């Protein structure tokens, strides 16, 4: 059964079926919230608030953009509001190391790592990205969301999302370069 079936049931009064929708989307909603808040406690609170808000506003859901997009937009806005209240300062990366290392060397270096090391490296790289860029990475690379959907979720224009994706790629390579340089120096 698709989401719309359960949405109609919940609107008709069978609120217990909202649990099905939560189960389906909780992991990615939690991941998006974690991308922005950087704290598991805050992410859980924001994710819960997002589902609660979605439940309360379910009758206003128009299905123009799909339940998933609508829900993620709520979660994104809730998380951004939370972060702004806490005034979290994000670190931006510089691009000074861009293009210094050939692409093949990235792949060789990454291929030479075990799974845990790869996870650690990408974790460190993503940690240094601004929160909205981390959300874009998750939606684009993990969920394979099209640019149009990312634009609807984040409220950024499609061209802005494309520009950000380009910058994110450069930044990720820059940070990988930085990590590999440090690793080679330490050997």
């Amino acid at each position, binding site marked *: 059964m698709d989401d719309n079936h359960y949405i109609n049931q919940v609107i008709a009064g069978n609120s217990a079926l909202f649990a099905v929708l939560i189960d389906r989307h909780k992991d990615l909603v939690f991941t998006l919230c974690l991308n922005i808040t950087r704290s598991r406690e805050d992410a859980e609170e924001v994710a819960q608030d997002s589902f*609660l808000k979605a439940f309360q506003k379910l009758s206003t859901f128009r299905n123009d953009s799909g339940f998933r997009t609508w829900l993620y937009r709520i979660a994104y806005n809730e998380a951004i509001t939370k972060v702004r209240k806490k005034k979290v300062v994000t670190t931006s990366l510089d691009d000074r190391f861009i293009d210094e290392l050939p692409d093949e060397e990235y792949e060789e270096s990454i291929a030479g790592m075990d799974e845990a090391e790869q996870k650690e490296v*990408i974790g460190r790289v993503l940690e240094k990205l601004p929160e909205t860029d981390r959300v874009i990475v998750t939606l684009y690379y993990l969920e394979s969301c099209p640019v149009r959907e990312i634009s609807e979720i984040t409220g950024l224009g499609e061209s802005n999302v494309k520009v950000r994706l380009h910058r994110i790629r450069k930044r990720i390579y820059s940070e990988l370069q930085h990590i590999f340089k440090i690793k080679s120096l330490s050997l």
Partner: protein
Amino acid sequence: MKPQAENDDLIRNLVRRKGIEKAPDHFTDKVMERINSPSLADDSPLISRGTLLAIIVGVAAMIVVILTVDIPYFDNLFSSDRIQKISMNIFTDGFFRTMASFFREFSSITWVVIGAALGLVLIDRILRKRFSETKGMMIW
């Protein structure tokens, strides 16, 4: 540099290696508990969209009836002679005396109409205050 698609594959593989974060245990239960809690039930709208529409249509209908339907009472109330007389009295007798004599001639029906209008304004004020307190959670 390599083509964008190949760069994307490298990043995609790394991001997928990291994977999605799992929501904490009992996450669904906690949300459902909050949904079923009495405090959330209190957030339900005080008046539904249909009721609000009915009130608006009712008030509009009342105004249309007063202004257009041929009822002798209203004809008398809003007749040009009467209005002209009141206007002239303002200059001769003073504003407050004119208004006092005007209101003295009101029948009980007029007072009901005025009372209903003031009541609607009051209800509107109270509802707006209640709605703003619930931080826009209402379903309109």
